[in-house]
């Protein structure tokens, strides 16, 4: 059962990674406009958007 000593921290670190990723998306307003984000995927990245980014 010594393998648990490695496996448990591994699973916790992976889970924490996902949690931090989630908090990051939340901080960057990624849940503000789900419908719009889904629609924007179809838009071409034209000159104008590149300027702003």
């Amino acid at each position, binding site marked *: 059962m010594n393998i648990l000593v490695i496996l448990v921290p591994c699973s*916790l670190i992976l889970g924490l990674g996902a949690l931090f990723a989630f908090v990051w998306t939340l901080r960057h307003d990624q849940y503000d*406009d789900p419908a719009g*984000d889904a*629609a*924007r*995927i179809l838009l071409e990245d034209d000159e104008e958007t590149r300027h702003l980014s």
Partner: protein
Amino acid sequence: MTMASCPGCIAAGPVAEAAAVRDGLPTHELILPTIHCSACIRAVETLLNARTDIAAARVNLSRKRVSISASADADPAPWVTALAGIGFEAHEARGIQKHTKDDGLILRLGIAGFAMMNVMLLSVAVWSGAADSTRDFLHWIAATIALPAALFCAQPFFITAWSALRVGRLNMDVPISLAILLACGLSLYETSVGGEHAYFDAALSLTFFLLGGRVLETRMRRAARSAAADLAALEPNRVTKLDGEARVSCPVDDVKVGDTLWLAAGSRVPVDGVLLAARAQVDRSALSGESDAIDIVKGDILTAGEVMLSGPVTLRTNVDASGSTLRRLIQLASVAEGARSRYTSLASRAAAIYAPLVHALSFAAFLGWTYATGDAYNALKIAIATLIITCPCALGLAVPAVATVATGRLFRAGVLVKSETALERLAEIDTVVFDKTGTLSDSALVPETDLPADACAVLKALAEASNHPLSRSVLPGLADLTAAEMSDINEHRGQGIKGMWGEIPVALGDAGWIGQGGGTVLQIGAQAHALARRERALPEAAETVRTLRNMGLVVHMLTGDSQGNADRMAATLNVDHVHASVSPERKQALIHDLQAEGRKVLMVGDGLNDTLALTQAWASIAPGTALEASQNAADVVLLGQHLAGIPKVLHIARSAQRRIIENFSLSALYNLIFIPLALAGFATPLMAALAMSTSSITVTLNALRTRAVP
């Protein structure tokens, strides 16, 4: 984050752009009720970003708004006109919505999800046979994750439960908080003595699923609130003031007593005042229901809400914006909360039965087992297990999931649901009462029957060139004609439109401006043809009434108009009962009488004279063209005056009602199976996890079945 590996994210366009708008802090917001796809986003953003007076514009499709960064005192009127030019209806939002406040809830949901999944992984190891020191080790790790996570994530429940308990009441959050706290406490004790069963995963999945329901509920409430804000924006909130000789545009709220306002023909009177022009024609249907035009002369009183049929005219205000008749009526309607406040939602009725029942059962289990075995600790364990298993996980999701799906479908169809219990009340409707003027019918300009065909063609060409509501109303009557060839067309704002028909000068507009005739006149060369105002049924009105009658509803028509006009319209539309020449108070009384007979009445109306009736009725719908006061009073608003949306709203409401009841039955069924097991002392953490997850998922999936088709 290693996002760069995804080609679509290298540019990271949307995020950076959103940040740009946020850093520049949006100064204006426009509401765009008709946008629905990526092409709309592109068109709106390209148009607005190309303007020199706008720093940045970004569309939010979920909220159907565009946030604009510009200088704070910029006038949004030209943007609205520009958007109208490419086919998008736009309204200025009053005040920018504050940044979303459910971020805290979503964060809690995320943490609960993370903790639940990790603890569940550890629990699977325990369930598949880990024993002795390994089990204790896994339990301790689970405890270190679960305790802080549960205490942090479940705070919203603790807070509402505590505020209910303090005033001696029970709500749904009391059994929830109790279950979470007891599950954590019992599991911690069990872990410390090396016991077999720990309920950490149950405590967390309970928190996770219920937070999910809570997030949906908050979003719904916010959507209802922003719907109400959208409606306020449909009312014109800018007026043209005469400052000496200059015309300046200013917000309605800045109007003071004694200001001189300039009104184009077809615009609505924003504030009560006295007519300064020599003569004018007004439409009072919004206030009284009369469909005929009324002539007034200099010095007569104009009341807010009336529509100018001739113009342009000037008026001197005799109150400021807050003292206007319109505002007073709005306040009246908001005080007279009717059915809305009397109705108890299905969820709270369920909670009222459920919460005491759950507590009684657990307490009975504790007493019963203590009495039977004398082992108080074991009895306590069984009582807590009962509480955890019966906890209203599915019940917490049953209503919000269905309501989210239903209002989402309605929002996409252009229907705004303002009240949280509106759908439940709409599902119970058995009688529909329509107001006539403005709701089932409108007034249109019709040419004399002996007008020659070429004159009709000229009329059509002129009317087509203008966006003015009066010109627009001419067009349906001329649908089968070809417009004449015209040149040099130009519109004189608020007065009329001029052009050249070959060599002959032609004009369509106000009689005063053209210089002959009365009302609205079509001039060809030297000859003038008067246009009369007639009432006609809206194109979809007859179809809507028929559909409603086929659904088994009784249809009434109420109007402040004369018996003759009412009977004519009733015959065209085939309604069951007609009541003509009724005052606003009488309208309210009629609805009250119908409800006293045990009928559930849906009132559909748009005028100020309908506000009382709208609040009195069991449920109410207002068309998008209605005045702010009526829209405030109504539960549901149809954007774009689609009467045909009414049967759809009723179908979705009924479907939603069925889904909610099914969801209640489903969660009751799960409890019927698991409560006896828990009471008998056979409950295990695995069983609790299974019961909770399956019931929550079935309830959510069932909610997705809410449809408009019966």
